């Protein structure tokens, strides 16, 4: 029950062990800070000294000020009452919001919650309007700085920006020295059979990009094979006694 009430009050850790004195005292302080707010902040000082031997005295006074019924003797019972009191306060603060809530509606709301968890996004990009003129201006400015040529669709440019940043500006890439010497012999070997020289060049560049991504994939395949080899491979065996040279 305590757990459910703590969930209602959105306590960060509703599973806590209230038999632990320290936790118990912390919880009382938390309730006063978050929900009850009976005292002004400076008046909460005594209650906050949870390690102090005087704490129990402060707690006694607090219960009195809250009008906690004297019949409740144990800490647990008193806590239950304080929790209920806190919930009552929370409810009366937002009556309009809670009143129309029926179990049926709640179930529906929960269903929605489980089928499509409305995770509150912490990623600022999710709330960006990718079509806004402002955003487009930003992308084009970025592309200019990275020397990426113009394309009518700024989202295509964004993809290019992402690729340049990912491949050329990551930590590893920045560490690497830019190789000097001969550029790749783009016009060596068999061509792409295009009549227009510009189209031919573009086709050859696209071909290299395609080969690069194929190479990356093949390398990943090889790395996977090596990992598997490390996992299961026994040492390759030979036994020279088995060998026999023919005639």
């Amino acid at each position, binding site marked *: 029950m305590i757990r459910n009430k703590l969930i209602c009050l959105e306590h960060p850790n509703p599973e806590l062990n209230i038999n632990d004195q320290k936790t118990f005292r912390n919880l009382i302080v938390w309730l006063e800070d978050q929900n009850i707010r009976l005292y002004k902040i400076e008046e909460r000082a005594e209650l906050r000294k949870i390690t102090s031997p005087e704490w129990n005295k402060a707690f006694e006074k607090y219960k009195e000020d809250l009008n906690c019924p004297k019949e409740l003797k144990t800490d647990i019972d008193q806590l239950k009452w304080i929790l209920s009191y806190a919930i009552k306060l929370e409810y009366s603060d937002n009556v309009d919001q809670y009143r129309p809530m029926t179990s049926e509606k709640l179930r529906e709301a929960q269903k929605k919650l489980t089928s499509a968890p409305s995770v509150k996004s912490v990623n600022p990009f999710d709330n960006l309007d990718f079509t806004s003129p402002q955003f487009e201006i930003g992308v084009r400015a970025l592309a200019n700085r990275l020397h990426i040529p113009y394309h009518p669709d700024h989202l295509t440019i964004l993809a290019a920006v992402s690729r340049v940043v990912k491949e050329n500006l990551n930590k590893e890439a920045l560490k690497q020295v830019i190789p000097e010497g001969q550029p790749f012999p783009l016009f060596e070997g068999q061509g792409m059979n295009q009549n227009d020289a510009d189209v031919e060049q573009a086709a050859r560049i696209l071909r290299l990009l395609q080969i690069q991504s*194929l190479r990356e994939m093949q390398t990943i395949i090889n790395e996977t094979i090596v990992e598997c080899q490390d996992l299961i491979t026994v040492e390759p065996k030979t036994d020279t006694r088995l060998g026999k040279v023919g005639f």
Partner: protein
Amino acid sequence: MVVRKYDDELKYIEKITDYSWRIKKGFQPNMNVEGVFYVNKNLEPLMFEELRNSCRTDGIGGFLPGMKQIANVAALPGIVGKSVGLPDIHSGYGFAIGNMAAFDMNNPDSIVSPGGVGFDINCGVRLLRTNLFEKDVRPVQESLAQALFDHIPVGVGSKGIIPMNARDLEEALEMGMDWSLREGYVWAEDKEHCEEYGRMLNADPSKVSMRAKKRGLPQLGTLGAGNHYAEIQVVDEIYDKWAASKMGIEEKGQVCVMIHSGSRGFGHQVATDALVEMEKAMKRDKIETNDRQLACARIHSEEGQNYLKAMAAAGNFAWVNRSSMTFLTRQAFAKQFNTTPDDLDMHVIYDVSHNIAKIENHIIDGKEMKLLVHRKGSTRAFPPHHPLIPVDYQLTGQPVLVGGTMGTCSYILTGTEKGMTETFGSTCHGAGRALSRAKSRRNIDYLDILEQMKSKNIAIRVASPKLVMEESPESYKNVTDVVDTCHSAGISKKCVKLRPIAVIKG
């Protein structure tokens, strides 16, 4: 066989270019397509001499000449395009060695023929590079040759030093090079530089007879006999610097290791078993051929499928075999130079299969067709951009490894567009016999050959000197003529020439 006078026979043969000849329909009965063969002016007389000899004896006795065999293949059901003879062509069982032919997979009459694959299924060549140079290897030439000889058992009846039991063999037959990878014998990068990635996926060990498995088990990791060899070679000439650099070959003098081997007794047994089965299928399905040796079965018949699955298993056997020898070669080099194979940069440049049938897509008369391509003594040579070649060779075309004969040079070629359209992306595979084995034994003394090797400063280790005579350079066509013909005809392009400094042979 039709017997005509030599002059009459010549009426069916027509020169197309300086390097190619057409065999017209009618040269042999029932030809569905024409034949074509590639020779330059040095190889041409050999080809025509064969035909003249067979006319003289009225076709009785002796081998069928290569031209006749090409024409007989052209008469097989379902063949498309043409029956192609490569420059190294010589008489073989059914199909000539150096003959390729493609059959339409969508034609229910199309056939598969074990004779079109050969007895040594997935016989092929693998080339390893090193970062060593001739000057590093010359001083230790003899001991390195000995180390290789000690690691790789050779000869008829040799047995391998990689321990295997029956279950290992079943797995290896199914997995091909993936088995070698799993057991840690090869590197992950080796796989991508193999045709078919070193594994035929349709392999089914249950279609292989017990007898074949029994023969194959002890032979894994052995070189075998015949024309098989392992050679330490040095780069003698680079014709295409750019393509060579893509293969990691930068300079003259760089040391490579070539391994030429196949599926040993295993493949032989698979082929023999299939021939027996197919003779029955031919009677049942009323398939007629010009030559009894051209036993075949419809691709989609049970016999055809059984053969293709067993052939694939034999193909996998050969890849595991070459992979095991790759491992042993790396061990031998690492020991000799007291370092690791990694530090010696002993990567596989490529691994080709020159006795195999594969399902491939080709453009015939502007239409894409699914074909069963038989290559017997013929190497696949796909052009740049072909999706089935490794990413590293997308710009240069597939490397084609052409092994010479003992003591002569070997070549690396690359595939071309022209080869793709003219010969279904196929080219030569080696030197090709000029003298029969028996004739070689009669005419050549093995001591002369050993002396010859010595004079060329080639270290040699052989298991059986008797067989060395059969493999002497004199018994073969000149590999340079063969390669030059392919280069001039444009069906593949010369890239690198290699010459041997040490030979290990059966």
